[in-house]
């Protein structure tokens, strides 16, 4: 696997490298010929009883190869909804979403499941680790989902090695057997990042990853994401309302009342 070999070469560097200096000024991201993710005319509204609440009112945006994109906006501006739509967790009412120029918003659910499993890695504000499983097992869940029982058992050693390596990468190699409730917030989020990386995704979608963390843990998580972005050219989309984090991104788009506002 690509990410594995890449990460294996610089484990220490990734973990310890002070990237803040590199990230202090937004980097000029190279404009790719085609976008990794592209949304066109996205509309989405929610229903509360008979009342229709429009959340997204025609969003056009694109996420380029290898960029670190921040989506900012106030609470209720629809940024999480947009992220969910990009990650195929939800279906837009109108508009189209393309992943590597392949339309994904109307795919049958099975293909969207596979897409989420293989191509997207997701991180949430509340980490969403499974409380019954250990840290290591939580990281292995996507691998378990993607393979059959037999296939998993055959490659179990390989998967475990990979998960351990990823946990080492995020600095949790000493927490393999712990249950999520025995971890701190920052540790849980780092475990969630390791989980998002296990199947070698092409895009990492992070929904307020630091929203529930103290400042230093938040910084650590952002540094980790930034490193991944730099080291592996991993495309990262991060939703945040924290301007400081947004400043570290290559590019920022702002959502105001369901529309992209130029910034």
């Amino acid at each position, binding site marked *: 696997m690509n990410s594995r070999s890449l990460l294996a070469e610089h484990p220490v560097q990734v973990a310890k490298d002070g990237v803040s200096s590199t990230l202090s000024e937004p980097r000029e991201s190279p404009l790719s010929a085609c976008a990794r993710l592209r949304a066109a005319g996205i509309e989405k509204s929610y229903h509360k009883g008979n009342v229709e609440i429009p959340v997204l009112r025609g969003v056009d945006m694109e996420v380029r190869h290898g960029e670190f994109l921040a989506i900012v906006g106030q609470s209720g501006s629809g940024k999480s909804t947009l992220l969910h739509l990009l990650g195929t967790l939800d279906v837009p009412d109108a508009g189209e979403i393309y992943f590597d120029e392949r339309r994904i918003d109307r795919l049958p*659910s099975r293909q969207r*499941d596979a897409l989420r499993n293989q191509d997207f890695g*997701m991180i949430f504000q509340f980490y969403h680790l*499974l409380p*019954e499983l250990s840290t290591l097992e939580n990281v292995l869940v996507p691998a378990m989902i993607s*393979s059959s*029982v037999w296939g998993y058992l055959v490659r179990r050693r390989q998967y475990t090695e990979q998960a351990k390596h990823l946990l080492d990468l995020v600095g949790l190699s000493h927490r393999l057997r712990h249950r999520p409730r025995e971890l701190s917030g920052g540790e849980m989020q780092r475990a969630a990042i390791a989980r998002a990386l296990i199947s070698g995704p092409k895009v990492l979608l992070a929904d307020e990853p630091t929203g529930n963390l103290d400042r230093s843990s938040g910084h650590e998580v952002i540094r980790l994401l930034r490193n991944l972005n730099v080291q592996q050219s991993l495309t990262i989309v991060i939703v945040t309302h924290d301007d400081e984090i947004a400043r570290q991104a290559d590019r920022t788009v702002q959502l105001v009342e369901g529309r992209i506002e130029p910034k």
Partner: protein
Amino acid sequence: MFKLLLCWRYLRTRYIALASIISVTLGVATMVVVNAVMAGFTTEMQDRIHGILSDVVFESRSLEGFHDPQWHMRQIDRVAGQYIKAMTATVNVPAMLRFRYGDNWMTHPVQLIGIDAATAGDVADVTKYLQHPDNRQHLSWDLRDGGFDVLPREASAEMPPRSQLQDAGWPRRRRRAEQEQAFRESLTPGRVEPPGFDMPRAEDSFATNPQLLSGPNQGTPSTDVASTVSSEDPNSNAAEPSPVDAVGEDSLPSEEVNPFERADMALQDQGELFDPARDQFDGLIMGIAIASFRSGDGRDHFLALPGDDVQLTFPTVGTPPKAESMPFTVVDFYESKMSEYDASFVFVPLEVLQRARGMIDPTTGIGNVTSIQIKLKDDRDAAVVRDLLRASFPEQIYGINTWRDKQGPLLAAVQLENRILNVLLFMIIAVAGFGILAIFFMIVVEKTRDVGVLKSLGASKQGVMSIFISYGMSLGLVGAGVGLGLGLLIVAYINEIAVLIGSFTGHQVFDPSIYYFFTIPTIVDPRTVTWIVVGAVSIAIAASVLPARRAARMNPVEALRYE
């Protein structure tokens, strides 16, 4: 893979699931136990019914019977010979049986059956239930020289021995004869009584052998009045010390043997006086409950024993039928433990009964019988044979039935009872199923966010669903497995458990004096057990389907937002 892991983890961490496991366990265990006991009782009962009834009964609709059983057997063999293993002819008539106990004549209505000792054993298990071991091997109408089973067969160790059977047979008969002799001599020393003297009803009985309980040497038996009478015989009047009572338990008043009237049939070719100490009448096998009763402590008390003489009164085949009386000597008891049979069946030699009823044609020597009992190679063919025979013989004259037809209402009632009980018990498991349903809905609600996470990680609907279904299946399997083990354990130790419960509650759970069994019969039918386990697991799975579907259909975005 994640399904199995999560399912396993949920199983280990959700103690509420224990509740549903326990309810499944209890349901399965109860069903296993009840089915084993019901099957035990049913089989035991059927065995006993079947033991006396052959597979197919070919019978005359009239007590007159039909002529020439051999010809009928040939015809039956011609029609359905390929199914038939053995046949035997019998004569069944209602009759009255009388024997003396103390001062009283005990009269019982009985079902009198004349059987051919040589072939009856091939057809039905009559001999299996006799009390003398040699008779069980080979039935003989001659009185045995003691050796009857004192310990009842198929009984537990607690069953009190039937000590009265100890001297049954010739020893008892001889002693009674001597006792009577001694008693008679004590009344009229040196005088030979004329026949018929002191015998108010000469036709009543030959059974006039007072018993000397404490041995033949006792000159005047009046010494042991009180002890023997009061302890053994609730019917006798101990307060009235007449010489009759004084003789003891089975004492009889002084009556003379009337060899001319009573015993001429048995003795006509011997040309000498009938001596009850050496001679016997035709043998008779009597249902044990006719001659005994069981007291509350489980002890059997006998009013007559092998070696005693009894009198049978039955209808002859003349027009109009007349009542014919005849003495017989009890040679053995029949104890199938089906109280209905034990209290009504009396067996005598076929030819004796035929002759006594006038069923034998004097010119040809060929007799009538009332039925032919047919034993099949495989008793499952009974209905086929019955239909074949019904098609070949006029139904106006012959009734042809399988043993199940004959006991139809009883068997049907038991079967119905069994079925209803099973339905009710299955409801227990269904209740467990609803428990699982409720608990699962709870777990699904609790796990809403995790379901969202799994979906965001790419788990399919089916995947999410199968977590909960395999969870339900595991609960069912564990519950049913433990229940099966528990049930089998209870079945294995059911009698001990019954005793234990009895000692706690002070009530006997299983009263042997009612059931005639001393242990609770159980049969574990692997097929039934399999069905119970499969049913329980299916109910558990069925109960988990609804919550699982709900989980699978959850919108991941909403599920993730759920706090």
